[in-house]
């Protein structure tokens, strides 16, 4: 039950939203799909004085913009899954968004932007954004700025966004044509949160040698981890031996594993390499 009396505002534009946010920064919560904010308010974990619902702020568009695909901050997972632009240019997002926990009801409400802003360690979107090299577009009273996804996630439930800033969109550099994508998610049962995830973008040449590779782990640490696989992969075909090396690199990359009630850090670290290996092989074999 939400026990605090609060002010509920629905801005009609980003400008209006920023005006509403500025004076109440710190006391306000932005609402996109609400699949995190509302349960947290219900359980008394957050008690905002003001809730700003972004549903009419015009931020749900998914569009192309010089070499990028920009996913609006309030685009729902269902909209991401249905986007032909994303399917054509950034196939990872529709593949991964279809695997969101919670089924159609959650996919119709929840947003990748909201998930990024909440920065829950055991959620899906952060690792996708890091693997894709997304730029997070932030808007505040002092103007707009872009922060690389890798720098956006600062810790568990912490981002680079200032209290008076809001996310407007995520600009994803269009991967080279023919890039291969895969998303691997380990979770315990349909209702549970991700325990370890891996997102991979792979560019292969005609001979199947790796031209470019990006791999990020999610849910294994406070923030998504980019795994430095370039040196091992580039110029080489994706063999089992190479995948084995990637497994070890990924395992080592988890310095301070995340612990929650479903899985402790020891477990997460033990499976981090496994999901990295599996996502790499899946991407090389066509997702």
């Amino acid at each position: 039950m939400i026990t605090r009396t609060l002010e509920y505002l629905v801005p009609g534009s980003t400008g209006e939203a920023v005006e509403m946010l500025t004076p109440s920064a710190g006391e306000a919560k932005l609402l996109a799909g609400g699949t995190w904010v509302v349960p947290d308010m219900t359980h008394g974990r957050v008690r905002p004085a003001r809730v700003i619902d972004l549903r009419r702020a015009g931020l749900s568009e998914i569009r192309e913009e010089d070499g990028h695909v920009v996913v609006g901050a309030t685009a729902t997972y269902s909209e991401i899954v249905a986007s032909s632009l994303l399917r054509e240019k950034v196939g990872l997002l529709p593949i991964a968004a279809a695997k969101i926990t919670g089924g159609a009801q959650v996919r119709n409400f929840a947003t990748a932007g909201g998930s990024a802003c909440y920065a829950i360690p055991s959620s899906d979107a952060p690792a996708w954004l890091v693997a894709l090299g997304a730029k997070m577009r932030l808007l505040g009273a002092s103007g707009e700025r872009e922060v690389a996804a890798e720098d956006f996630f600062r810790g568990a439930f912490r981002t680079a966004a200032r209290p008076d800033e809001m996310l407007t969109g995520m600009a994803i550099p269009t991967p080279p044509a023919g890039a291969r994508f895969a998303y691997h998610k380990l979770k315990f049962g349909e209702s549970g949160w991700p325990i370890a995830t891996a997102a991979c973008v792979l560019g292969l040449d005609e001979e199947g040698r790796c031209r470019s590779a990006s791999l990020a782990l999610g849910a294994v640490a406070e923030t998504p981890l980019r795994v430095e696989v370039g040196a091992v992969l580039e110029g080489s075909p994706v063999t089992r031996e190479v995948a084995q090396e990637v497994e070890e690199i990924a395992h080592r990359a988890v310095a301070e594993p995340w612990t929650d009630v479903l899985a402790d850090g020891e477990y997460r670290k033990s499976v981090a390499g496994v999901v990295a290996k599996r996502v790499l092989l899946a991407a090389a074999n066509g997702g």
Partner: protein
Amino acid sequence: MTIEVERAPREAPRRRYVGSRQKKLKGDLFVRGKARYVADIELPGMLHAAVLRSPHAHAHVKSVDVSRALEISDVVAAVSGEDARELTGPVPHFIDPAVFGGKTAEVRCLAVEKVVYAGQPVAAVVAASRNDAEAALDAIAVEYEPLEVGLEPAAGTQGGTLLYEGWEDNTIIHIPFVEGDVEAAFAEAEHTLEDEVRIQRYTTAPIETRGYVADWDTSAESLTFYGACQNPHPLRWVLSHALGLPEGKIRIVAPHVGGGFGLKMHGHPEEALVCMLSRMLERPVRWIEDRRETFLIGGREQTHTFKVAFDDEGRITGLRNNIVANVGALGAPPGWGMAFLTALSFPTGYRIPNQDVQVSIVATNKGPWNASRGYGKEATNLVMERIVDLVAQKLRMAPAEVRRRNFINKDEFPYKTNAGLNIDSGDYHGALDKALAMMGYDDLRAEQERLRAEGRYLGIGLAFELTPEGGDIPGTLVAGFDTTTVKMDPQGKVTVLTGVTTPGGGNETGIAQIVADEVGVSLEDVTVIQGDTGLCPYGFGNYSGRSMLVGGGSAALAARDIREKLAKVAAAMLETEPENLEFGEGVISRRDNPDASLPTETVAYSVLTLAFATAAMVEPTLESTRVYKPDNITHIPDEKGRIQPYPSYSSAVHLAVVEVDAETGVVDLKRFGVVHDCGTIINPTFVEGQMQGAVAMGVGAALSEELIYDDEGNLLTDRFKTYLMPRAGDLPSFEMEHQVTPSPFTLLGAKGAGEAGVGGSQAAVANAVNDALAPLGVTLRQMPLSPPNVLRAIREAAEKGGVS
């Protein structure tokens, strides 16, 4: 003392409905959203209660100050434990351990002076809305003096953190079940093994949480209580004691209930609390439980440390088992008794002549247990089936064969177990063969060999399950009989008022099927009313798989009275003898001349309208109230002091096929099959529905469901995101067949069908996972078989050097 038991009637009615797949009566209400649950009840002037719960697992309550909460404008009342003590008495225990020689403690709706678990109610607020009530909880100031917290039974028994004043340790009761010469069995054994099974704390999680509405009528000085509860009449007895009101002044109504599983058996503090508040304020008061509050109530946390003696042929000759059950704080619900039943139910359906099974039931600073489907007997099945598989593994013998060699044979029934249980009937060898054939067992083993060669870990797990059902615990309101009234109106339609209730499963449909057959009317012409102490005969509600057994049995007896009376009058009207009548669906005809017939309605009308003429030979009422007491319950102790509290023993054989991902510990349940024997089946659809739900519960118990506490005793798994109940997508379609060995002791030959399935499926999955990982030398002892637990066991086995 002997009890006269009514056997099958001279001439059984033609069964049109019993045994057939009828749809749930009024089932459309549920899919149309028209079923009325407690949370749908709105009464004029109704207020809303919220409960302040202790943040400490063990503490003295120094003071509770509600004055600031009372200053809030929408708050109508705020009460502390001291206030409540003035207004209500203690809540009587559903099953008081003292009845069995154990320790007991007073339970009050709001804690006074001391709290013994985190989440225990300490104060309550009543306000105009639930939001207002919950918000005002923050304004209550409670001063605690924290005490040392004991979450494990071992710590508790040392006496350092005594939960209750006057107890010398935290053990509620210790019960031995010893039979035969165990020393000799082990001394002479060709083989022995010892091992352990640790069962996690888990619970039941009905989709509808608990909820109560109390409505005090000042002018009548009476109370109406609407509750998501399983046992209205016994609850009335409890509330009468707690509130100091005569039972006649309390009416309990259980509207539609969205799942019970034992959680809605009573003794919960909020029941008396809501009534107290309504009486105090002279207004209706509602309280609806939060999911977080539901998870405070636990069940089933036990450790079994056992030794087994067996011969070269795989025959088990002796069993020692030391059981320690962590039942949490002692609550008034019947939870703690489950561990008693765990020990009592050994060694299930196996012939093991010598046993020493002992159980220590220990209180700790976790939340109290309530009854949970299986009522402790599921743990017996899990542990027994692990034992049989460990014997098979040690002898390198087929698990099915070891079972065959130890099963009670079908010609040995009724069979008295070591603890004095009298198993009615069964054919365990037959059910095993049926299950192996249904699942294609030999092909599965061949597939396993093939996959092992590829480095994949397929596992096949068998489990037998015996479930004592329909129990009666002497000296308590847990009864093994029940009462039903059947009435026919002058239009020939039938109303059934029964003492059994439904948690949503559909026993009302089964009862209607029985009555429709017995009186010869169509199913649509039978209305079943249950769950209202103002209307129904005194009964005990639902638990222990009893509803068809005794609800169905008593309905059949009452319906036969009606039929007999109709037969007498119809015989006069058709100028023949009652024995010459055939009862059709709404029509009664002469056997020797089917054209000579009367609508049942005409006969029913005549009973009431021709009472001084055609129907003069019968008492002019078409109502009968009958009790059905099944045979086979014996409370007079035998020469060894044992009693026999269960009339029926259903059985099942389960088979699970899993694949384990040895890199992540993730278990994929690929197939699941069960052959179930609950004797005569009233409605196969409902029996299968019960079994499907029970298997899903057992799979969840085996793989993922766990209530986890932090070191201070705070519950961490307080929602479905962290308490992982399987969803449909986590489960394969279950394969299911029936075997029918009717009970010779029950009226219809039926055995309980509501509880079986949890322990058997849990055991089959546990055996399958162990089987899958046998090549790695893994033995899993800690439940659930969650990926972290499985991966840890794999790593530990590897560190020990793999297969021993």
